[in-house]
């Protein structure tokens, strides 16, 4: 059984006068331990797919089995629980709580999960900060950290509850190329050494190249699914309007 099974997943936004088909139909499987990049032009539906995979959103049609559990029929609380237990999120703008120390940011997911003692919470958060190389910065607030450091705090926070999937929404979008590379290396390391499934939405070809599998989206559909980055790149650069 695959970790993620999408079957004819569609997402329609009903804006009253018009219906926007953000995802037309997506049927796909993702195995545990994969490293996937979601690429595509703006409005192609990659963020919608990301939100759907991340259980932040619910498809309007189809079936989404995560680790064998049907997400589509879950209520808000059940999805919150899945997010807490199975998923870790990293965002483009880091989304750390400001005026809150790095340590407390990392502790957050542990507060919303099954009860963990304050001491254990702290120990686990410290351990995660250590893994991303920020053990000595645990008491710093986000405003006192560089972008790369903030993103590493966010990664530590995403992983502290030992999820099976790490999701990144343009995780290097706000970073310079050097820190981007550090963050990408960290993703790769987590994927290879700890077998964490990584799914990233990205515009950055360097990030996409790093992934083992690339899904190219256009107009709400997956137009290319390949392990060969050159094929993905070709599909991405193909302009259907010019083709005619």
């Amino acid at each position, binding site marked *: 059984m695959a970790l993620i099974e999408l079957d004819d997943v569609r997402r329609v936004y009903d804006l009253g006068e018009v219906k926007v088909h953000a995802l037309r139909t997506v049927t796909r499987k993702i195995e545990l331990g994969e490293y996937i990049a979601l690429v595509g032009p703006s409005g192609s539906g990659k963020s919608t797919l990301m939100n759907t995979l991340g259980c932040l959103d619910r498809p309007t049609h189809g079936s989404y089995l995560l680790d064998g559990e049907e997400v589509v029929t879950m209520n*808000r609380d059940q999805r*919150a*629980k899945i997010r807490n237990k199975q998923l870790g*999120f990293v965002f483009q703008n880091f989304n750390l*709580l400001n005026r809150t120390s790095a340590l407390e940011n990392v502790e*957050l997911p542990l507060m*919303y999960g099954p009860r963990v003692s304050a001491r254990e919470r702290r120990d686990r958060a410290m351990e995660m900060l250590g893994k991303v190389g920020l053990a000595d910065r645990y008491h710093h607030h986000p405003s006192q950290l560089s972008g790369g450091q903030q993103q590493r705090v966010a990664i530590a926070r995403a992983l502290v*509850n030992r999820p099976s999937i790490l999701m990144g929404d343009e995780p290097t979008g706000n970073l310079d190329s050097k820190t981007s590379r550090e963050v990408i290396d960290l993703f790769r390391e987590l994927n290879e050494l700890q077998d964490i499934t990584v799914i990233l939405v990205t515009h950055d070809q360097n990030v996409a190249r790093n992934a083992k599998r690339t899904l190219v989206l256009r107009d709400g559909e997956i137009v290319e699914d390949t392990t060969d980055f050159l094929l993905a790149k070709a599909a991405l650069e193909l302009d259907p309007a010019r083709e005619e």
Partner: protein
Amino acid sequence: MSFFDTVRIAFRALLKNKMRAVLTIIGVVIGIAAVTTIVSIGQGASKLVSGEFEALGTNVILVFPGQTRRGGARQSGAPTLTTADAESIGEECPAVLAASPIVATAGQVIYGNENWNPKQMQGVGQDYLTVRNWELEAGGFFSTSDIESNAKVCVIGQTLISKLFRTVNPMDEMIRINNVPFRVIGILAKKGANMVGDDQDDVVLMPHTTVRKRLNGSPLDNVRIIMVSARGTKQMGQAAKQIESLLYERHEIGPSEEPDFSVQDTTEIAATLGIITGTLTLMLSAIAGISLLVGGVGIMNIMLVSVTERTREIGIRMALGARGKDILRQFLIESVVLSCIGGAIGLLLGTGASMCANVLINMYKPGTDWPMIVSIPAAVVAMAFAAAVGVFFGYYPARRASKLDPIDALRYE
């Protein structure tokens, strides 16, 4: 998330905006302070009322002339009590210590070229001082023979001395009461004002016979009130019963008939006064409570602003696995913490204010001995009320926060 963590997070969130938090709780502070002060002063007043009655508390029972029925017409305050009734109450009721008839009059008192209209001019019996538990400062009281002979003697209170005599020793001086000359044979000890603020020293006491015959010119032997004191607080009920059965017998009233008098012990009056002060306190507290409501609306307003401001934080927390109820609880506890801090400060301020009020009252009305009361139950109720305000006014904003869509919240700028 554990309760403790939630409270800790609420405190952290509030500390990030100290100024705003302070301004937000001012309404609650004022509300709770006002309620606390008013309740404290009100309780002081009730305590004073009952204390006064206990002190006067020579266990006084009052017998009033009651209704009479003549040809079907009912009349209250009819002259049905006589001095003989008063005497026999004093003599025949074992639970009664002393009884005195009271006949009232009014008018002018003149000494030399000074005049004064005392508040109380009463004709009383020889046991009056025993009944009231009053004391003489100088001289003596009139005797049975003074009463029998309608003697023109009087005993005066301290206020009359200052109004009429100034530096002269009033003992054995002649004063004219409604143009009838009276000799001053005694001076009452100072008593100060009573709880209503009436001067209890503004009094002239004369034999009741003298007042009735020489001043009021009444041929009847009726009295306005018979004032009785029981032997002790415990004998009050007993004494009242004995007085009733005695008067039933003396007035020849059958068991099925309505009595032509009424017996009232002062504990009842005290209770009535207690109810009055209690009602006043309640009313004022209700008015003060309105400011608490206004304070609550202030909290609600700020919590709504806070929810909007922290939309992204809410989104982050939701993405990390916070459920709607976690968010609800977080904001609810924040507003309860706010209102409780306000309540605690208000409680302290209110206690301080009632202490000040207490000092001021005792300074400007010396002798009142206004008691200072800060009751624990009132404090607990005030805090509970503050917390309830927090829950009530915090619920709507908190609910709004908990209903946010995580994706929208995360995108919120």
